[in-house]
């Protein structure tokens, strides 16, 4: 099964617009063990991202948020990159994700932090697999929101 399509949140869009950010581009995102980068197994069912890797899924999520706030530009000087450090979920109703995010501008690193979030939901036995599938997008949105809420991150993009 495919990982759910990520959708940018209105709260993040509003936050990014009001922060008055300069345009930014999304650079390379990679993964490092123990993060699951190719697939996540939920009670024996494998969930894979349409982007080919979960690092690319995270990059796509950030791109979508920046695009909706109209601050995504492939020609921008500021670049956001990252490394996925943890990425897993289970059928019991827990997901964890952790990533290192960097903002560079002209060779200078302006932001370098690790962000981690955990997400829990109520899973019933019968719909544990589709529920876990849906909740993955919520897990990623929590991580992205945590990043956008960091004043040092928004300051690095001004």
């Amino acid at each position, binding site marked *: *099964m*495919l990982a*759910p*399509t990520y*959708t*940018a*949140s*209105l*709260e993040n*869009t*509003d936050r990014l617009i009001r922060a008055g950010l300069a345009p930014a581009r999304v650079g390379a995102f990679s993964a490092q063990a123990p993060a699951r980068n190719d697939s996540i197994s939920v009670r024996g069912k494998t969930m894979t991202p349409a982007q080919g890797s979960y690092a690319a899924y995270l990059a796509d999520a950030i791109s*979508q948020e920046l695009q*909706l706030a109209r601050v995504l530009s492939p020609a921008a000087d500021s670049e956001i990159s990252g490394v996925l450090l943890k990425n897993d979920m289970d059928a019991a109703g827990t997901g964890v994700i952790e990533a290192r995010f960097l903002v560079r501008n002209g060779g200078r690193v302006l932001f370098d932090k690790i962000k981690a979030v955990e997400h829990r939901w109520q899973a*019933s*036995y*019968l*719909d544990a697999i*589709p*529920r876990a599938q*849906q909740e993955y*997008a919520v897990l990623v949105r929590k991580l992205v929101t945590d990043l956008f809420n960091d004043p040092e991150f928004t300051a690095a993009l001004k």
Partner: protein
Amino acid sequence: MNVFRILSACACALLLGACARQIVITPDLAKLEGGGVASLKKTVGLYVPPEDKARQVTTAGGGGDKVSYFPYRDLETGVYRMLINVFEKVVVMKSPTDSDAFRRDGVTLVVTPTIATDSSSDSLLRWPPTSFSVRLTCAVSDAAGKVVTQPTVEGVGKATLSEIIADVSVAGKRASQDALGKMQRALLDAPELRR
């Protein structure tokens, strides 16, 4: 003893089956294209009441089962994305009388969506809906609260059995997508918004 066990198992299955299954009807925003039509030179505010965002609804699925979802939470980003295709600037408003938005952001019109949904399935064995409808109304009002226009559209989404196995929410996502596309056209065509 065996009869008791069988009856207990049946009761458990019925109880579990009676629980509504969670789905998400958020459409793929990448598919919400502007269509190359020039947007209206207006700044609008989008207001979704907090009580609507928190509203969870339950409608029919297949095999006597039900599905549950949050229509406003799932569709609000899509509505915002659609409004970007229609108007020059869109601002998220904290209240319909958000004076900051009117003064600082230059909002002249406020858009408040209303969403009604329904679903059904032609499958007796699978719970995800194969048919979904999203009735979307966008009330467009001025700074005084007077409704300028209020188009209503109905989006429909259908899915086959093999599609709902891959994505339990697919019919709902298609209905949302269809409703947003129709609303985009309705707003662009509304003569009241061209004045």
